[in-house]
C-alpha cells in the first residue's frame, strides 16, 4: 500500500516536471546557459569564434573596453540620457496625471491620446521625428522653421552640434516613455481614498499642502517604482537612438552602452563576443548598483 502511494507520488511528480519541461528547456538554453557563458566570454582573452580558442584568461577584455574611446563616449551619452530623461519624464508624468485626475470632461479622450506612443513602433515614429528636426538642402525642417519664426537661428538637430542631438534624443525618449508613466500614475492617483481629501478640505488645508501631505505619500510607492524602472530602461537606451540617428551610432557620436555591445557583436565592427560580454557585464554592474541605491532610498523614505 505504502509502496503504491510512493509510486503514485513519483508519477505525479514526473507529470508536473513534464508540464514544466518546455519552459525549463527554453530557459535553460536561452537564459541560464548564456548567463554562465557571458561570464566565461568576458574573461577569455583573444577569443576566436572561428577556431573557438583563446589565448588565456584574465581581465584584458575589461581593460580594453574601459579604454575604448567609443565605449567611453557611449557611457557618457547613456548617463546624459539617464540624468535628463528620468527626472524630467517622471515630473511631466506627475503633472499630466494630476491634471487628468482633476478633470471629468474629455478625460477618457485625453487618456487614450496620451497612451498612443506606447503602441507605436519606435523605429517608425523615430523616422518622423528625424524628418521634423532634420535640415536638408530642400528645407530647414519644421522645427527649425518654428525656431526661425521666434527669432532663433536654425540648427541641424540630426547631424549638427552635440547638444542639439542630445536634445532631440531626450525629447524623443521622453515622448516614448511618458505613456507608461502617465498610465501608472493616473491609476495610483485615482486609488487614493477621497475621504482624506474631504477631511483636509474641512480643515481648510491648502491645495499645495494637500498634495505634499496626502497625495505624494500615498502615491510614493508607485513613483519609486517608476523611477527604478525608469533608470533601468534609460540605461538600456538603444532603439530610440537608432530610430533617430540610424544604425551607425558611432559615427553619429550618439552610441549608447547597449549599442556598443551590439556593435561589438555584429555588423561592420563586430565579431568580438568577448568585448561585448565585458561591456554588457559592466552595464549590468552599473544598473544593479543604481537599482540597489534606489531601493535603499525608497525604503528609507517610506519608513519616514
Amino acid at each position, binding site marked *: 500500500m505504502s509502496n503504491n502511494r510512493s509510486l503514485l507520488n513519483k508519477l*505525479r*511528480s514526473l*507529470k*508536473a516536471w513534464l*508540464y*514544466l519541461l*518546455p*519552459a525549463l528547456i*527554453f*530557459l535553460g*538554453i*536561452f*537564459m541560464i546557459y*548564456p*548567463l554562465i*557563458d*557571458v561570464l566565461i*566570454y568576458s574573461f577569455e582573452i583573444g577569443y576566436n569564434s572561428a577556431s573557438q580558442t583563446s589565448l588565456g584568461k584574465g581581465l584584458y577584455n575589461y581593460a580594453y573596453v574601459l579604454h575604448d574611446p567609443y565605449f567611453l563616449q557611449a557611457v557618457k551619452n547613456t548617463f546624459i540620457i539617464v540624468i535628463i530623461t528620468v527626472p524630467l*519624464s517622471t515630473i511631466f508624468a506627475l*503633472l*499630466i496625471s494630476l*491634471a487628468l485626475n482633476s*478633470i471629468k470632461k474629455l478625460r477618457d479622450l485625453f487618456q*487614450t*491620446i*496620451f*497612451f*498612443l506612443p506606447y503602441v*507605436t*513602433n*519606435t*523605429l*517608425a*515614429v523615430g*523616422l*518622423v521625428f528625424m*524628418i*521634423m528636426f532634420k535640415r*536638408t538642402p*530642400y*528645407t530647414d*525642417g*519644421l522645427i527649425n522653421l518654428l525656431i526661425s519664426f521666434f527669432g532663433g537661428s536654425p540648427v541641424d538637430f540630426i547631424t549638427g552640434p552635440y547638444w542639439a542631438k542630445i536634445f532631440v534624443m531626450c525629447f524623443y525618449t521622453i*515622448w*516614448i516613455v511618458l505613456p*507608461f508613466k502617465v498610465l501608472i500614475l493616473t491609476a495610483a492617483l485615482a486609488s487614493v481614498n477621497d475621504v482624506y481629501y474631504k477631511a483636509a478640505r474641512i480643515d481648510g488645508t491648502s491645495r499645495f499642502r494637500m498634495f505634499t501631505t496626502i497625495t505624494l505619500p500615498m502615491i510614493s510607492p508607485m513613483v519609486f517604482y517608476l523611477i527604478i524602472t525608469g533608470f533601468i*530602461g534609460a540605461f*538600456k537606451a538603444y*532603439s530610440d537612438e537608432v530610430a533617430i540617428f*540610424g*544604425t551607425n551610432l558611432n559615427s553619429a557620436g550618439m552610441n549608447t552602452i547597449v549599442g556598443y*555591445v551590439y556593435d561589438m*557583436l555584429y555588423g561592420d565592427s563586430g565579431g568580438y*563576443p568577448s568585448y*561585448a*560580454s565585458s561591456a*554588457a*557585464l559592466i*552595464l*549590468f554592474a552599473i544598473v544593479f548598483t543604481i537599482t540597489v541605491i534606489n531601493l535603499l532610498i525608497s525604503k528609507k523614505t517610506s519608513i519616514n
Partner: protein
Amino acid sequence: MTDNTNSYDKIGKNAKISQIVRLSLTYLLLGLWALMVLFPFYWMILTSFKDYGSYNSEFVPKLYTFAPTFQNYINAFTTVSLGRYFINTLIFTVATTFIMMIVIVFAAFAFARLEFKGKNLVFTLFLSLMMIPNELVIITNFVTITDWGLRNSFLGLILPSVTSVFYIYLLKENFEQIPDDLYKAAKVDGTSDLKYLFRVMIPICQPTIVTIIILKVIECWNSYVWPRLITDDSSYFLVSNGIQEIRENGFGRENIPAMMAAVVAISVPLIILFLIFRKKIMAGVARGGTKG
C-alpha cells in the same frame, strides 16, 4: 448686514474665478501635450499623401495638402518589399505568441496546481531570472543560433523569445485564485489534469490570458534588436528592420513621402488593435507592461 453678504459674495466669486482659471490652465496643459503626441502622427499621415515633387519644392512645409496622392503607398509596397516585411512580422508574431502561450500555460499550471518535490526551489529560481536583463544573454544566444545554422530563419527569430518568466508568474498568480475545491471536485469526477486545465482554468482566466497575448503581440510587432542581429537577408526582415533598411537604402534617401507611407502602413495595425482593445491594453500594461 449687507456688508457681510457682499463680502461672502465676493469670496464666492473669487473662488469661482480661481477655479475657472485653474480648470482652463489644466485643459491648456493637457491640450498642449495632446498636440505634442498627435502632431507626429498627423505629420506622417500628411506627408505620406504629399506628391514627391511638391514635397521637395516646399521650403516651408505646408500643414495641409489639397492634392492627396496614393502613389507613395503604391511605391512603398512595390519599390521596396514592405509586403514581405509585413508577412514576416505576421508569421513571427503569431508563431512566437502561440508557442509562448503553450509553454507558459503549462508551466503556470504546474506551479499553481501540481505538487512535486523541489517546487519552491524551482519557482524561486524562476523568479530570480526575472532580474536578468536581455542584454546579458543576447550575446550567447546570438552565438548559439549562429552555431545551429539558424541565422536568417524563422526558427532562429522565434526560439529565444518563446518563454517569459514574468508571464508565467502573472498567470500562476491568476490560476491560484481559482478555488481548490473546484479542482478536487473535478478529480472526483475523474477529469484529467489536462482537461481541467483547458475546460476550467483557461476559460476562467481568459482576461489575463488575453492581456498577455496582446502585450506579447505588441512586443513582437515592435521587436528590433534580436531580428537585426539574427537576419541580414532582407527576405527575413521584420517591419522594424524593414523601416531601417528603407531609411538607409530604400527609395533613395530623399523620397520622404514614400518613407512616411511605409511608416503609416507599419503603425496602423497596432493603432487599430489599440483602439479596439483600448481598455484591455491599458489595464494589461498597468499590470504587467514595462517600456522605457
